[in-house]
């Protein structure tokens, strides 16, 4: 923040008369502030930084990283933060102006997408542009944590040794989950390693664990109200070619999809949902990143093995 802005803030404050300060973080807490965009990264940052900083996660549980909005106070807090952590690769569209403003103010930034080997979307209209959903691959999150550690130890007021020790511990946990996922997926025969899905976020998981993504073949609700063979043709073909017994779909009517498949096409599969772009509230199944990875791996293995 420039000296001019500081003076401006003081003046604005002086003109408004006495009252209490509404700046968010608790009054006596003088730890550095790390503002994080998505809740998946927020969880990871909290694990690494521990109590060495106040971590402010902007995206609430069960929200959408592409479109969440922040309040004026949160935007202000970003511009006076000690570090801003974002996903990057175009994920935080609704937030980009605030990220840019903070960067213009000289706030230090760590962009997770800069720390990883980026994949492009494989097909569709976005084909060839970078895919921001790297968190489905825990090995890429290892790269992110290493970069994050380097950024966090530079923050004034944190104990670098403590942060490094916590980063090491978390990297160990990530390694363990990675090994578990590898083992869980090993139960799926090579010929059935296909994710028939309308999710668009599993490109990195597929790359890492050798799955084929079969996307955009699951018909939506209005079609299923009066289905014909042509509505289900792509999905039936995908099911037959891949030999899968489960498809992974976000759908308001999974039962109707199952019935339509059974009646119209004589195909019997399960429709399962995966956690995709957000952590959940505690107790809803994906309250932290490692739990989210494990839950998805188990559902995929249970559906396909």
């Amino acid at each position, binding site marked *: 923040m420039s000296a001019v802005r500081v003076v401006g*803030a*003081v003046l604005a404050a002086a003109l408004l008369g006495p009252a209490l300060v509404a700046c968010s973080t608790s009054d006596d807490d*003088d730890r550095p502030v790390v503002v994080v965009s998505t809740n998946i990264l927020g969880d990871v940052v909290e694990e690494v930084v521990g109590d060495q900083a106040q971590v402010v996660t902007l995206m609430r549980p069960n929200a959408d990283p592409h479109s969440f909005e922040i309040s004026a106070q949160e935007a202000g807090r970003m511009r006076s933060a000690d570090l801003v952590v974002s996903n990057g690769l175009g994920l935080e569209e609704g937030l980009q102006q605030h990220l840019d403003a903070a960067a213009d103010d000289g706030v230090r930034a760590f962009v997770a997408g800069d720390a990883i080997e980026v994949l492009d979307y494989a097909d569709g209209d976005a084909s060839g542009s970078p895919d921001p959903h790297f968190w489905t691959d825990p090995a890429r999150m290892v790269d992110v944590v290493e970069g994050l550690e380097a950024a966090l130890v530079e923050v004034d007021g944190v104990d670098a040794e403590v942060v490094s020790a916590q980063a090491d511990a978390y990297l160990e946990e990530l390694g363990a989950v990675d090994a578990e996922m590898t083992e869980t997926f090993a139960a799926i025969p090579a010929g059935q390693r296909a994710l028939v899905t309308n999710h668009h976020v599993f490109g990195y998981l597929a790359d890492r664990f050798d799955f084929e993504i079969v996307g955009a073949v699951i018909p939506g609700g209005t079609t299923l109200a009066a289905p014909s063979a042509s509505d289900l043709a792509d999905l039936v073909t995908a099911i037959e070619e891949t030999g899968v017994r489960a498809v992974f779909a976000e759908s308001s009517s999974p039962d109707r999809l199952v019935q339509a498949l059974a009646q119209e096409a004589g195909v019997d599969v399960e429709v399962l949902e995966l956690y995709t772009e957000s952590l959940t509230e505690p107790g809803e199944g994906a309250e932290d990143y490692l739990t989210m990875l494990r839950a998805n791996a188990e559902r995929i293995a249970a559906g396909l093995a």
Partner: protein
Amino acid sequence: MSPRLIVLAALAVLPLVACSGEPDPSPRDSSAGGDENHGEFAGAVELAEPALGLTTVDAAGVVRHLDLLDESVSELAGVGDASGVHTDGRFAFVQTSGGVDVVDSGVWTWDHVDHFHYYRAEPREVGTVPGTGPATVATTNSSTSGGSGVFFGESGEAVLLDTEALADGELVERYRVSTTPHDGLLVPVGDLALVTEPDASGTAARVLTLDGDGRPVPGGAHPCPDAQGTITTRVAAVIGCADGALLASVVDDELQVERIPYPPGTSAPAATSFAGRDGRPTVAALAGEDRVWLLDTRAESWTLLESPVPLAQVTAVDDDDEHVVGLSTDGRVVVLDGGSGELLGTSGRLVAASLRSGVGVPTMVADQQRVYLSAPAEKRLYEVDFADDARVARTFETPTRPLYVAGTGR
């Protein structure tokens, strides 16, 4: 001390101030439970699937919404005398005697290029854009940002509405500028817009670029003889001209206008009305009754198809099979292969009475798997499966004549 701490120290002895430096009477604090709107737009909920619907207007001006998922019907508004409707996939812009009434259907889709997000909020009547005579409405792909253009030809008034404000339930005119009265267009492109300008005979002859305040941008004039018809694809805004189409898009805050001339040597009538599946790059237009123009805004190319039957309307699905759907002049839905022009399917004469009687204008709305057709005289809405020999998948009876229809939730 970090810069942040300097600010906090300064503020600590001073007053109630939001961290942005602006007073905020209703701070949203995560501990206060006032956060319901985070991750959503103004109270909207995100859905797993698009909440596709058909929003209709009858002769009494009653605006109804048919939910295509659960088949329920609700009344959204009463707008009085209506003479047309236009939509951006969320808002119904209803032409009335007093101007253009804007009704929020409460359902929309957000296009993220690689995927979509679907929302539902409370439907509501937003307000009226006052004006006289028929209006031409031009919208973008986004129903949550940018602008929507309304052009009143009789008075020559061009009004740019703030679409983000509409999404918040407020009707805000970003500007209203007076032009020479003519049959014209105001087409939003990013934060800018294009407005038609007539020649001495009163026919639109070129388009001018307007900045965010409605002022002409120097050097922003582009010839477009007899400008008619506009649509916005995910690639660009399209304006039809006698000699081809203009494609306008904003790249790095700069307006880019490309001209796609008709193929040399063709004498087919020019496209004056474009239709296609929401957001897709390829759109269709009639070239007279017997031929169809396909404009691929990504490849910047025209294709001319011969139609096996005379057509009253046409729209492009732009799916993998390049389906093009037409309404024949005798009231059938016909499905063409956009690559070869081959006839793939024909329905029965669904809207023969409407076409014969002139009660309303049957209108087609295409989505990825279905095309919907309004039948005002028959008091019906049809759902047609174009991939299955133009089979009528569902028929919805309507309580009154659905004179005008808009596809919403898209």
